[in-house]
C-alpha cells in the first residue's frame, strides 16, 4: 500500500502517515436486539468498490476524517470532515 490520501487539514500524504479506521458503520440504538449488536460489532460489508471509511492522520494533525476509497484500485476521490459528510456517498452516520 503506497497510495496517497488527502488529509482535509494537511493535504496529500503517503498512506503510511495514517491509521485506517474501518468502513463507516451505524451503531445500533441502545435497545437494539442482540443480533443487531453482533452484526454491528463482528460483520463488515467489505464492499468491493467505492466505500466510505474512517482515517486518522496519526503522523500529522491527529484528526479523524472520512474518505471515499475504491477498495479495488485504492483510488480516493474524496476526503472530508465528518461534519461535511451530508449528501456524500457512504451511509452517512458513523457510529450512531
Amino acid at each position, binding site marked *: 500500500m503506497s*497510495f496517497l490520501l488527502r488529509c482535509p487539514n494537511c493535504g496529500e500524504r503517503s498512506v503510511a502517515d495514517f*491509521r485506517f479506521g474501518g468502513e463507516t458503520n451505524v451503531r445500533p440504538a*441502545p435497545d437494539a436486539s*442482540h443480533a443487531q*449488536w453482533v452484526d454491528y460489532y463482528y460483520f463488515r460489508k467489505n464492499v468491493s468498490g467505492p466505500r466510505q471509511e474512517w482515517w486518522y492522520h*496519526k503522523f500529522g494533525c491527529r484528526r*479523524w*476524517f472520512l474518505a471515499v476509497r475504491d477498495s479495488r484500485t485504492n483510488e480516493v476521490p474524496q476526503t472530508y470532515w465528518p*461534519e461535511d459528510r451530508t449528501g456524500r456517498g457512504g451511509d452517512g452516520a458513523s*457510529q450512531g
Partner: protein
Amino acid sequence: MAEPDPRQTRLPPHPSQWTDPASPVSFTYNGKQVSALEGDTIGSALYSSGARIFSRSFKYHRPRGLMCMTGDCPNCLMSVDGVPNVRTCNTPVQQGMEVRTQNAWPSVEHDALSVMDKLDRLMPVGFYYKSLIRPRISWDMARPIIRRVAGLGKVGPEKDPDSEHQHHNLHSDVTIVGGGPAGLAAALEAGRGGSRVVLIDEGPVLGGHLLSDVSVHPELEEHAGLPGYQVAARLAQQVQEMSSIRVLSGATAFGLYPGNLLGVSQGKCLYKVRSRGIIVATGCREVPHLFPGNDLPGVYLGEALRRLMHLYGVVPAGRALVVASDHRGYRLAGELAQAGVQVVGIIDARESSPGGDTADSIPVFTDSSIAGASGLKGVKRALVLDKGTGETRSYACESIVITGTYEPNTGLLAQTSTALRYDPELQEIVPEDTPSGIYVAGDVTGLHNLELSLIQGKAAGCQASLGVDRPTGTELDALRRAIREKEQAYREALEPSSPSMAPSKEAGKTFVCLCEDVTPKDLYQAIDEGFDEMQTLKRYSTLSMGPCQGKMCLRPAIELCSRYTGRTMDETGSTTTRPPLRPLTLGTLAGPLHMPVKRTALHERHVQLGAAMADVGPWKRPHSYGPVSEEIAAVRERVGIIDVSTLGKIDVQGADAPALLDKVYTHRFSNLPVGRIRYSLLCSDNGSIIDDGTITRLSERHYFITTTTANVDLMEEWLKWWNAGAGGNVHVNNVTSGYGAINVAGPKARETLSKLTDVDLSPDAFRYMRSAEGEVAGVPCLFLRIGFVGETGWEMHFSAEYSEHMWDALMDAGSEFGIVPFGVEAQRVLRLAKKHIILGQDTDMVSNPLEADLPWVVRLDKDDFIGKHALEAVKERGPRETLVGFVMEEAVVPEDGVPVMHLGQPVGRVTSSRADPTTARGFGLAWVPADLSQEGAQITIQVRGRPSPARVVHQPFYDPEGARLRE
C-alpha cells in the same frame, strides 16, 4: 596458478574503456590474490585473470560462466566480503575485497556434486511433489541433503558488521528510470522545462548501452561523427550541468507502487521516490537462445562481449562463432575480429545476408541456426544447422556469441496497469497503454533505434513535465509526428527473421531457466501434466523463480509454451511481475534500526540515584534504586516518591465533554462534581476492557484524564473518533509529554508536601479522590489525591520543565521524614497488596469489567455507553471466570502466568504474584472459573511444576477498609 598481470591480458587502452592501467588494485578470490584495475568489476577482473567458471548451477551443479555482464543472469553470483549472492559482473572491484564462489565443493572448477547432472532422471520436474511422500520419513531424510546440494550462497549467522542502512524520501516532478540515451534525453527535456528531475541509473556511469557502443552514428545530426560512447558522455555532461536534475547512479529501481512511488536501492540506501510523472526508459536486454549446451561457459550474450571488450579491455581468447539476425550482430563480429578474436563465422537465420558492417574475411552462414554446443567445462565445439539442406556441421570454437533477440525491460511497467502485448511485427512483448503519469521511451518500447530513442525521450520528458496526458504544446506535436514517421520507417525496414528453432523433446540438455536448471523437457512434461499456461507452469516447474526472476527465461519459456500448445503468445500469457525486480538484502528493506526510547524529564535524577532502569514499553523507568523491600517499607512507614510522568494524560474540554465521557467510559461523569476524581474503565462494544484511569473534573466543561502508559495514543484516537462520529464540541489534547507527574505517598506525605505548598492538605479539607490546584515549591500543580499504592498520597501534575526542581524540592522537604524514591517494582507490589489491577498484566484482550471483579465501575443504569449491551449480556449469563485474589497456603511464590489447576487440568492462570514480606507466602491475582471464585475457595496453583494449595481472597490484602488511604 601463475598470476597473469592484468595489463598483459588486456586490449590496448581505448577512450571507451573504464579500466585504468595505471591504477592496479588487488583482491582475493577463494583466498588467492587476484590483480585488477581500477574501473574493473569483480567479474571483468576475474575474467581477465583467466577465470571462466564462475558458479555451479542450482540443481545439476553444471559449470556456468559470465553470460550477460549486465547483472541479469544468475551465473556470476558469488559471496563478497561475507555477503552472499552478489552479482560480480557489475559490482565494482575494490582493493582488498574477499570474493568466494558458492554452492560447489571442493571448488567451482572441480565440483564433486556435478554428479547431479547425471542423476536428472531421478529428479524430473516437480519430483518433490510426487516422490518422497511415503514413507513420511523419506522426506525428513532427503530434506537436509536436498538443502545442502541445491541452493545458492550461505548467509552467515553473525550480524551484518556494517549495517548502516538508510532510508530516504525523495520528491520530484519527474523521475526517469534508466540513464541510457532515451532517459538522458528525457531528463534534459524535463529539466529544461523547469521540472525537478530524479534520474535513476543502474550503472556507475550514465549512458546505458551507448557506453559500449564504439560505432559512429551519422544519422544523429546533433552528434554526427561521434561514436556512441562519446554521444553518451556528451549527454551525461549536459545532465550533470543541469542543476534541476538529481542523478542516482548505481541505483536500482526495484518496484513501482501505487501513487507513483518508486522503490530504489543504492548501496546501503533505500530511496522512496514520489513523483508526478515517471518515465520508464529501462531499455532492453538480450535473451539466450535455446540449444543443447546453451548454458556452457563460453556462450555469451552479445552485450557481455561488447562490455568486456569496450569497457574493460578484455576479449575471450581463441575462436568465436557469432549468431546474428541483424546489423548489430555483424558489427559485433567485426569488432571482435578487430580485437584479435578469430571469428569462425556468423550464423544468420535469414535466407540471405545483407552483409554491410562486417569485414569480408568473416564467413557468413545464412539460412542457418545454432544447433548445439559441446564441451566439458566450456564450449569446445559448436553445431550449426543448415536449414536449407538439413545438414549439421561442427565447428571448433571456444566462444558462441548470441545476439539478435531482445526483450524490453518492462518489469516496472508490469507492476502498473500497463498493457503488455506481443507485437508480432517486432516479435517482442511491448507496453501498449501506460496509465496516467507513466511514460515510456527508448528500447523498452521494442523499437531499437538510437535516433528514435532520443526523440522518444525528448517527447516523454516534455510530456511528463507538462504534467498532463494530452498536452497542447506544438513542440510536443512535432515530436510525436517525428516518432510516428520514424517508427513507421523502422517497422518497414524490419527484416522478417524466422523464429529460432524450438528444441525437440529428445535433444540434450538445453536450459530455459538457468537459475533453477529447468529444461524444455521439464516444461513439455509439465505442460503434458496439465500445467499449460505460464502461471501454473512457473509454480510447478520453478521456472523463473530463481535469482534472475525470469529475466533470462520468461521470454523463451512463453515462446516454447505457446508453440507446444499451439496458442498465441498473448494467449499463453505471462507470470505476474512483482517487486523487487532485483534481489534486495533484508538490511536494505529493514533500514536503520530506529528503536525510539522515551525518557521522562527526571531521567538524569534516576541515573544519579543509581536506579536500575527497566524498559516499560518505549519508556525507561526505574525498576528500583536499591532493595525493593526497603522502598516498600519506606512508603508504608514514612514517605516515598515516584516519578509517574509516563502516565498518559489527556485534556478534554468542550460543551459536549461530559456527554462524550459518559459515552466512552463505563462510569458516569456528567454527574461528577467539579474537583472530584473518579476511576473508570473503557470498553469496546464487545464489552472487553480497553483501558482504565482516573478522570478529574476541573470545571463544568473541562476534564483531566490519565490513561495507562502504553495506551495513551490509542485513547487519544478513541476519544477523538467517538467525538468525530457524534459531531460533538469537544477538544481532546494529548498532554502526556507536556506534564511531569510525581506521586508522593506514605504516612508522612502530608507533612512533606505541606512544607512546600499553601494548599490545605488536612484530611477534612483535602479528601480522598479530590483534586485541587495550587503551587508546590513555586510550581503551579494539579493535585490529585489518589492512592494506587494504598497510602495517603498525592499525584502532582505540573509543567514538565519543572520536573527536576519539583523532585529536588520534594526530596529535600522529605529528608527529615526519611523520604525514599521508589521504583516500578515496589509500586507493583504495593498496588498488588491493594488488589489494584494493571491493564494488560491482569487483563487481556477479552477481559470484561464484570468478570475482572470491577462491577462498581460499570453503570448499567446509564442510557448507553460503549460496551453496555455486551456487558448486560455478560451479566445475564453470569460470569464464566473471575479475577480473584489468592494467598498461598505454603511459603511459596508462584511466577506470573503459571496455571491454576483443578482435577489435574489447567483451569485458570496467575496474572500477578509477589511474596508477602512477613509470611514469605505468595499472594496475587488469578483468573479462576466462576465456581472456584467464592471467598475462601481452595484452589491449586502450579508452582515450578508442583501443585501447591492456595485460598481465594476477595478483600485487598492490605488495609482492606482503605483507612490509610483516607487518613
